[in-house]
């Protein structure tokens, strides 16, 4: 009797430790399985942030958005990942979207093409920024 309790206790401990270890080391999840909470054009997103950043942050901040816009610039970052700038209707700034480098095999559209992507809206830093983006 005592023995079985000990075994159960030991098993619970090992499972607990394993779950804890797994949770602690869990990598950042991609947005592949997450649905966008809103669909918006790059133009509309940029103007909403330009008009009232605080309000736009309340609506879109830390949300997964589906954004559509014309690609005006493609940049290669120092880690080899790609950042796309979508036209926001401003001469310099737009919607800056860093593609998630752990999602592979994506085809980068050509400049001028319309891009549809989903990503995490993280705020405005001259450009409106989106992280962990996936081209749809």
């Amino acid at each position: 009797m005592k023995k079985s309790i000990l075994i159960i206790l030991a098993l619970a401990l090992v499972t607990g430790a394993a779950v804890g270890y797994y949770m602690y080391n869990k990598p950042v999840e991609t947005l592949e399985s997450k649905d966008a909470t809103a669909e918006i054009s790059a133009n509309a997103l940029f103007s909403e942030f330009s008009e009232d950043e605080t309000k736009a942050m309340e609506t879109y901040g830390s949300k997964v958005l589906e954004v559509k816009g014309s690609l005006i610039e493609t940049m290669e970052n120092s880690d080899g990942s790609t950042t796309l700038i979508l036209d926001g209707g401003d001469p310099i700034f737009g919607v800056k979207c860093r593609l998630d480098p752990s999602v592979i095999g994506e085809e980068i559209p050509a400049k001028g093409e319309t891009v549809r992507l989903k990503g995490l809206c993280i705020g405005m830093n001259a450009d409106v920024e989106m992280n962990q983006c996936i081209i749809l």
Partner: protein
Amino acid sequence: MKTIVTILLFTLTTALSAQTKYFTRNGTVTFFSSAPMEDITAENYNATSVLDAETGAMEFSILMKSFNFKKALMQEHFNENYVESDKFPKATFKGKVLNMDDIDLSKQGSYPAKVEGEMTIHGVTQKIAPEGTIVVKGEQVILESKFIVKPEDYKIEIPDVVREKIAKEIEVTVKTDLEPLKR
């Protein structure tokens, strides 16, 4: 006639002064914390930065939420508990290259740069004077710097429970390739 000349002159001078500005929106800022229990690295590839070659004025701006961590839990703790990204979304640096006169941006090479300015993290502003290097490569101007940031200086509280996992001094590395601002 006079107005036309004035307008022409004005356009010309703004065009000229525009050429002295260098800009990037995908600069790299990484930080590294080395502690007995764990080493932590976070990387940000979307720093926006402007350098005015004439005056040496320099600005950096990053969103805290564009720091990428390897572990989800670390990223969550960083944003929610330590830097409080929702309350203080940006980190900025506004400063000046003090020895801009010694740096010839038309001549290829590597120049030591003395920088002074104010850095704001977590809503707290501190004066810093990091040393760096300006590398001129063709049209590109590359800024590189490495300096120490102490979380306590920016009122970032690290609870005792994780004290063994997070360093008291965080090493920040900046590397940005600036290009002439074409307008």
